[in-house]
């Protein structure tokens, strides 16, 4: 199939970017990134600069790939990452606009690659249980009802890709933060630091320059792991409780 691409090209963080157009021959069984591989090989052979984009596992789990495809992070299909999106989701002759995640908190490194270090810093501010190696009790001495474990797991499947930020009109990171806060606040292991954690993480989130949530729901709709919007409700609740407790 013949595909027309309009791809964002930007040399580095400080330079101006622009769109460039390319034509690619794709096969319907190709993944979206394999189409970019093919295009890049062409570009290199023709002596041009290939398009920089982030990717690694190509199994939809590492969270590295990040393309906004026709205005939607990870493209038109629900519940898949860019690397798992296949060309059969497009039609012959389509023109596809590809852009990087856009948010002040995620500066562009080059072309379609962005810096998501802000997410790491949010986790470093409190997204953990403080338990040094060797301090653990026998695993089965902490009983956790299956429903709780399942719900905590659902929140824990976040891959930290940043699609939520990229989809949100406010570039808000609350789905990401909400997922981690939900996971740890539900589990008994997370209780001792429950209130301090949520306050620290929200403070860091604000400091990183993410916007405020206005409950449009775009984040959850575009999340490749389908983290539900309820994690943000949960985040709110946890945060207000902690604040009203003077944390």
């Amino acid at each position: 199939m013949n595909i027309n691409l309009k791809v964002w090209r930007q040399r580095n963080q400080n330079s101006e970017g622009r769109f460039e157009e390319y034509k690619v021959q794709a096969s319907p069984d190709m993944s979206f990134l394999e189409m970019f591989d093919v295009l890049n090989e062409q570009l290199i052979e023709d002596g041009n600069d290939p398009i920089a984009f982030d990717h690694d596992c190509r199994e939809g789990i590492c969270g590295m790939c990040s393309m906004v495809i026709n205005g939607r992070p990870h493209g038109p299909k629900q519940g898949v990452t860019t690397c798992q999106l296949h060309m059969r989701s497009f039609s012959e002759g389509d023109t596809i606009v590809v852009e990087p995640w856009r948010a002040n908190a995620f500066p562009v490194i080059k072309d379609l690659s962005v810096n998501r270090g802000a997410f790491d810093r949010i986790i470093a501010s409190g997204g953990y249980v403080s338990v040094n190696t060797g301090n653990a009790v026998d695993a089965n001495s902490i009983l956790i009802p299956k429903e709780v474990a399942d719900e905590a797991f659902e929140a824990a499947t976040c891959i930290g890709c940043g699609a939520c930020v990229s989809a949100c009109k406010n570039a808000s990171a609350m789905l990401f933060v909400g997922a981690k806060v939900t996971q740890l606040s539900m589990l008994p292991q997370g209780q001792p630091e429950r209130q301090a954690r949520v306050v620290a993480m929200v403070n860091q989130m604000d400091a990183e320059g993410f916007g405020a949530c206005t409950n449009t729901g775009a984040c959850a709709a575009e999340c490749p792991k389908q983290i539900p919007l309820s994690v943000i409700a949960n985040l709110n609740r946890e945060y207000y409780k902690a604040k009203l407790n003077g944390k």
Partner: protein
Amino acid sequence: MGVLSFLFSSSLGRKLVMAVTGIALIAFLLVHCLINAMVLLNDGGQTFNEAARFMAENPFIRISEILLFVGFLLHIAQGLYLTFDNRKRRAAKYTGNPGNANSKWYSRSMGFLGTIILIFLVLHLKHFWVVSRFHAPHALGEITYANGDTMENLFLEMANVFTSPYAVIIYVLGCFSLAYHLLHGFASAFQTFGINHKSYTPIIASVGAAFSIIVPLIFAIIPVVMHFGIIK
């Protein structure tokens, strides 16, 4: 204030202010709507005027009015702040347009809808609230009903205002904005409070949708029926 400073400093705090004031405004709308609906009884405005008198004279209502005013100001100020601040969080805009694929247009347009409502509100206050509260006593003119009760005739003021087709159009547009503002705002406030559960969130959503349609509809009907003289 220390404990509550987060309401004006953190993103989640600001959101809470929006939700709390939003719910207060929703409660106000409900009362306002019930009173307005009395116009539709078509009794020459008697019930409506009586209710208006009650509202004007009851001290509890007068105190609430001050709170409501503060709520309005907070909702507007915080809303405008958030709208402009959030817009700055993405300096480089997208070219691709997702349309309504991941969210509703009115959810994304709360600032715009709110601004229309604000403009409408200024006009609305000038039409009725300023007239009834700040003009010299009896400036509105009085009416004496068959039972001998004499009171200010706010109903007549409405009839006067709505003789203008422009006023009717502005009021109807205002109600449209209000409907869409509520369609997002009602459920959104509950989400902000942290109330989200698969068993009751659908109920909140349905009640919210019903409220968002019925209340503005009643508001919008009144100028229309009065303009066309269906209610006199």
